[in-house]
């Protein structure tokens, strides 16, 4: 048990699609799971990021104050940080907001397209960053896995390699989009 690697998966500003592609490994996920302990993930009930995780897969770009805090903490406590998917790698669709910045977005959603009580929510919700940024602009990233989402086969290959203690090479396997 003790030599099993520890794994975490997190989502920042993405669509969950990269996580769904992880699940698309189907029975291969169950099979692989004998080789790791999933310590922290939307799929399990732990509420705080652990002190030490061998491998963390990050979906999504950095778009809010909370994302920023979160990814810094994750970097500090992670051995191998993997940017999973185009949003994490380039900002992708999440970064389309950068064409206008957060303010017009908030006004459209909470002032214009509303019937009652027009106002921008501020209680218990994090402020949006001026610019949506890819993960490696904020913290160092060890492995980049492109795709929107990366295919289940690609994720399987990446995970298998990492669990075996190797750095995956994705030439010819993974691509953007």
């Amino acid at each position: 048990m003790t030599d099993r690697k520890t794994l975490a998966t997190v989502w920042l500003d993405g669509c969950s699609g990269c996580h769904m592609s992880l699940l698309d490994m189907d029975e291969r996920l169950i099979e692989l799971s004998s080789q790791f302990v999933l310590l922290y993930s939307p799929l399990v009930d732990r509420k705080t990021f652990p002190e030490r995780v061998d491998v963390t897969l990050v979906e999504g770009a950095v778009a809010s104050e909370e994302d920023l805090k979160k990814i810094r903490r994750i970097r500090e406590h992670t051995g191998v940080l993997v940017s999973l998917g185009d949003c994490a790698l380039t900002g992708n669709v999440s970064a389309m907001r950068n064409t206008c910045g957060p303010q017009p977005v908030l006004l459209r959603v909470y002032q214009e397209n509303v019937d009652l009580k027009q106002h921008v929510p501020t209680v218990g919700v994090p402020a949006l960053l001026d610019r949506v940024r890819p993960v490696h602009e904020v913290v160092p990233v060890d492995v980049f896995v492109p795709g929107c989402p990366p295919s289940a086969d690609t994720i399987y290959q990446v995970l298998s390699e990492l669990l075996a203690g190797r750095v995956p090479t994705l030439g010819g396997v993974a691509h953007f989009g």
Partner: protein
Amino acid sequence: MSRTIVIDPVTRLEGHGKITLKLDDAGIVQDAMFHVTQLRGFEKFCEGRPFYEMPNITARICGICPVSHLVASSKACDAILAVQIPPVAANLRKVLNLAQLVQSHALSFFYLSSPDLLLGMDAPPEERSILHLAHSHPSIAADGVALRQFGQRIIEIMAGKRIHPGWTIPGGVNEPLSAEKRDRILGMIPLAVAAIQRTLGWFRKEIEKFSAEIEVFANFPTLFMGLIDDRGLAEYYNGALRVIDSEGNIIAGELDPAHYASFLGEEVEPFTYMKFPYYKPLGYPGGAYRVGPLARLNLAGRCDTPLADAEWREFRATSARPLLSSFHYHQARLIEMLHATEKIEALLADKGILDKHVRAIASVNNSEGVGVAEAPRGTLIHHYKVDENGLIRWVNLVIATGHNNAAMNRGILQAARHYVQGEHIAEGMLNRVEAVVRTFDPCLSCSTHAMGQMPLTVELRAPDGSLVREVRRG
């Protein structure tokens, strides 16, 4: 001493949300708030893009139900083209939409909620996951994996890719279905039906253990809303919107979804990025309604396929009026999976499904278009305005999960009042509060996409609001 409890993040949820509970001096929950803490802004940043990009851009709202967005968006674009798409294209989109429903319901039921159902709400948190169930309940976990895979494979076979396929386009779809693909899908159906029936079998027995939860898991009167076909039966792609009250009376029989803005309003609360839609004639909050599997089975005359109808009859016979507890969303989800699978089979059995004419071609003929479909979680509305060149000028999206926002908040309050009491707050009490949210299967990726990272904290505050003690759960 008054206290605030923060559950952050709510886990086993599609997207991250957090919950704040406010307790008074006597330790009674006075207020509950469900915060959705992210906003992505598709309604603004799509401006200036050509309308025909919208299906592919808006699919990126959600990787769990991208097909629902593809379908609703394509329908809004059909309206901008002012075309009636070829019947086979509509049927192909229907199959894709139903496959989406099956895989998404399987995710909700097996991957997210079944640990609570099989191990109990008080099971150790580290055991409450699908990976644990793969060891403790291998055959059930295997059914869950297989059913999600079934839906995803249909999408892959038809549209080329499991997540974010491009195949559904304005005017129809971009490629006809081949006989070989059809047969591959038909070949998968018997195993899927058997797995769903096995699941319904054990769930019906298991549910007896949850009578206490059924009582307080968002168990109160609300309206229900969903699409119906011209016979008043459950419909997921076309049709009119029906609204019923908690007694089962039809208060609006055939609302035209294209005119949603005349009968649905939206309200904003300061504590969440998710808005609160309501049925306008009854105002807010009186016009709060629920959508999704339970709503659809409550308001439709029946499903319209034999196996699902039998299940539907048994389900509805348990109550003389609509089922009001959101706990019943779980069973409704299973019945809908059966319904969808039977419907996929019926649609594919029709010879016309192989027709080659799958796309209507036109340019911009309307400056505005609304597209509506039933997503796994409920009614999904895309509304676009374009200029004469077809560039997007304005977008409004009313997302399935959003409709349930008011009911989710009230449901959290109801369950928290019942379970969260006293000096010692046990983990299982809080898991039940989260489990209420899970019954709705909210897709926060869609409804703005939420998240959170802080640990669960319980704060003891003095009457002046100063912090006396803080307890953290890791």
